[in-house]
């Protein structure tokens, strides 16, 4: 998804106003005239400056407000991108409940399906990759990958 320079600039200006406004609620360091608000306010000024420049630069071109990139016109590519993002979100929610191994195998199967890997290739790959990651991270590096409903693997 591509937005025109003018739209991007407009968005930045709105964000800058919100940022600057909210920053004014931060207190100063006691006894000093500068504190937590100064830096975010300067960042907001920077955003606003960039936003105005982009609006001025973009206004002359007459670009459409929102341009769909080539991939975004293909339903399959849209599905692949949104599927990947939703897959990550689902992993974040489900992994602590169900456990690393089943959730990761399921996520990999979904991703392989999105890239059109045949299931009989995908399934062993997903299993081997998940178990290899489990072995390295959980067993060797002692990362507490969530167990969830799964029993501890026998290594």
């Amino acid at each position, binding site marked *: 998804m591509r937005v025109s320079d003018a739209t*991007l600039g407009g968005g930045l200006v709105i964000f800058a106003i919100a940022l600057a406004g*909210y920053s004014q609620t931060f207190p100063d360091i006691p006894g000093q005239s*500068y504190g937590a608000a100064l830096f975010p306010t300067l960042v907001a000024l*920077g955003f606003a400056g960039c936003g105005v420049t982009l609006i001025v630069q973009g206004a002359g071109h007459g670009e459409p407000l929102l341009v769909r*990139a080539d991939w975004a016109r293909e339903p399959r590519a849209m599905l692949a991108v949104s599927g990947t*993002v939703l897959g*990550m979100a689902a992993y*974040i929610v489900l992994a602590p409940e169900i456990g690393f191994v089943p959730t990761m195998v399921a996520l990999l199967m979904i*991703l392989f399906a999105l890239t059109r890997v045949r299931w009989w290739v995908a399934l062993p790959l997903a299993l081997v990759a998940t178990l290899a990651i489990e072995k390295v991270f959980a067993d060797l*590096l002692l990362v507490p990958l969530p167990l969830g409903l799964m029993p501890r693997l026998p290594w």
Partner: protein
Amino acid sequence: MTPIETALGLVFQWDVMVAIVSAALFGLAVGAIPGLTATMATALLVPITFFMAPVPAVGMMVTCAAMAIFAGDIPGALLRIPGTPASAAYTDEAYAMTRKGQAELALGANLLFSALGGLFGTAVLILAAPTLAEIALKFSSFEYFWMALLGLTCAVFIGARHPVKGLVSLFIGLFVASIGLGNPAAVPRFTFGSTDLLAGIDFIPAMIGLFAVSEVLRAMAQGAPRWTIDQTSMGNPFRGWGRLVRTYWRQQIRGNLIGTGIGALPGSGADIGAWVAYATARKFSRTPEKFGTGHLEGIVESTSANNSALSSAWIPALVFGIPGDTITAIVIGVLYVKGMNPGPTLFLFQPQNVYAVFLIFIAANLLLIPLGWAAIKLARRILTVPRTILMPIILAFCIVGAFASSNSSYGIIVMAVFGVLGFLMEENDIPVAPCILGIVIGPMLEKHFITSMIKSDGDLLAFFDRPIAAALGAATLAIWLWPVAMRAWRGRSAPAHRNLETGSQEEGDS
């Protein structure tokens, strides 16, 4: 025992050696895969280094980055897709050589001059860093403020196609850096009641998201098509090395100097070094008409530059704690985790660790020659692994790596958010690198800015009172004003310039 003897003892241990060699193989594989950058390779290594002693941890990052920058040349030459952005400057040139059946000559030159460039940059690092550290001991908050700002300025303006979009990226990074409690007033900012956000945005999952996840999303959008390789057989890449050095020693030295200089500037790294060196090679060449037709001259100069920039980027990182490029930005995070806080005092209190890092630099660049040879030989096999299989597995590694940074789902959430952000940024031509440097340098910039403002009671002229601060400030302002001056200059000589541009475009296409 002297610090150097201690350092030798720290480096030459079997576990350090195993760590370095495995990081080298990992770096070569990641660098050789188009789209996966040296920065991404380094970011993916971070979760593993949590569990290691400081020297092997830092050693792994050094070796991995050096290997990945060289390996980026391989798909550049074979497929015309640069493996890392640092190889992009001479990809067309190297690919033209492959089409003439000279892939082994191009890659052999890349390997030789990468290793030599890396050693040159290391020599400068070893000589310059301790001296600079002594000077840095006298720095006050004013000098540090200007150093930090100079770094960010270089990241945005030098070699940028759209300085305004670079600035947008930088401000995104600075905003992210201001989230949490870590500010001079210790006030929770933009946390909206979340306890996870109190500690700020964890830099490592953000990095994995911006570089790796965004690339996975891009590949998914394109349906992860296979790569096709033109040249099927590969000769001996070592052939003709002596002649290469005798013919191209001027380009090599100039490339090394340009790369080291640009790398040592805070905020600009190997990518920019390679572009500048390629342009310089063309400018000073006796046969500029051969450029773009498969000519070694430009390749030698820019490949010498990118690897030397990689080493010299460590100068500002070790001495001032200001990253020279995105790779050293990650390394600084690791140094803090390992108790090797970068800054001049590192040289006073832990000289043995500094020397150990230097030794690993030398070892990594020597190791590059045999391993690089193997990588050239194996490259075709690596590139036959279908991306449809590679990308999902990379995402799995990203998820586990992001989780390991905080041992909680929070890391994965940060990774996913920054992955989507990085994807959208690249879609809109907003570069990612300034954002990363903003996240890393932001807290330091704010701390020294607020301290300086309080010390000077709000008097901005005090920022120019001390001589070094004044020089750094002047340099920073000069870079800011440069685009404005250039635009004024172009406005005056517009017709002539336009002719030049179309001319170079045609040559580039040929």
